[in-house]
């Protein structure tokens, strides 16, 4: 088709003007809904840890939830901008949190290798990564209306957000407080979710 004809045809279409449609609310809804579903899935399937009420009364017990939620919130806040061409997503907060988490993981291996390997790390990583598929799909669905000009970065951030949401949900059942083991395996699982998000980003977010 001739380009001039295409322009004319699109202009005819464009008469029905499209107002600006930011993805902020969609992302927030997707995150909140998928967090609810993840929790609703964890409670009956994996079971809530018996001493949850006592645990969240201690700083170490509540810290893993706060950190997981903080990462999810920081990542979700950055996402709407990432899908508006010409705007740069602010990733400082996400970067700092992920960096801190990875440093904490490395330190816990060095400082207390035995404690870091305690518990059932494989179940932890598999559960968090598996649970993250749900929020990831919801977030991608919310983001597809936008136009990410850096799909890899956007996919990675969406993956990290999903990892944070999944880690929060899994944390309800995991009997460990924030310590060497949690500091190693939670960040590992969350960054795996981020890497998977980046891996599928071209396919999931390309336009």
């Amino acid at each position, binding site marked *: 088709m001739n380009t001039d004809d295409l322009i004319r045809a699109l202009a005819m279409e464009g*008469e029905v003007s499209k107002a600006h449609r930011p993805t902020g609310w969609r992302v927030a809804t997707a995150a909140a809904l998928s967090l609810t579903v993840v929790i609703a899935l964890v409670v009956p399937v994996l079971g809530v840890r018996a001493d949850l009420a006592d645990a969240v009364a201690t700083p170490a017990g509540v810290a893993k939830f706060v950190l997981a939620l903080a990462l999810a919130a920081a990542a979700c806040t950055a996402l709407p901008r990432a899908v508006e061409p010409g705007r740069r997503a602010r990733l400082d907060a996400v970067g700092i949190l992920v960096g801190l988490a990875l440093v904490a993981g490395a330190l816990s291996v060095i400082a207390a290798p035995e404690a870091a390997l305690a518990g059932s790390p494989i179940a932890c990583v598999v559960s968090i990564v598996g649970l993250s598929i749900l929020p990831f799909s919801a977030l991608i669905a919310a983001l597809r209306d936008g136009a990410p000009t850096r799909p890899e970065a956007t996919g990675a951030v969406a993956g990290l957000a999903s990892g944070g949401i999944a880690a929060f949900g899994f944390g309800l059942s995991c009997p460990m407080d924030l310590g060497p083991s949690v500091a190693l395996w939670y960040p590992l699982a969350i960054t795996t979710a981020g890497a998977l998000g980046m891996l599928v980003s071209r396919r999931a977010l390309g336009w």
Partner: protein
Amino acid sequence: MWMRAARGGDALAYERLLAAIVVVVRPIARRRLSRIGLGASEAEDVVQEVLLAIHAKRHTWDEGRPILPWVGAVVRYKVVDAVRRLARERRRHVDTPVEDWANLLPECGTDPDRAAVDAERALAVLSGREAGVVRAVALEGESAGEAARRLGISEGAVRVALHRGLRRLAALAGVPVDARQEVRR
């Protein structure tokens, strides 16, 4: 500016905006494609892809912000994407020995890949339901009833969407409206 006027329903302003974008994008596309050994006709395809992307994603521009960075980012993304894809396709073509595809040539009167690409590109201007119905009925040959069941809408809605979609595509392609009868099975 023009985009703002277009949001108010001014088609002429929107047309002028798209024409201005073409003036800027065309030389960029030609330069980028000549670097990988492709000509003006491929460049024009890329220009059209950019226009369709601008059109399809125009709701991502915020009136409160300057439009040039928005246009620039969409153009960059689309051009880089197209150049990467075309370079890959080209490499594949060059890697194939002549004998391998020489005997394929007689069948290539209408390149099926190309037709599919054109059809998909044309469908991009239709709304979600219309595009889905046209794809199901006109391209994949489903009956209206099958398409209705699969898309979860009534058969009447399928017919209406198909009719609207085809009429719009026909208008786009500059074909007289009656020609759509041929497409309908």
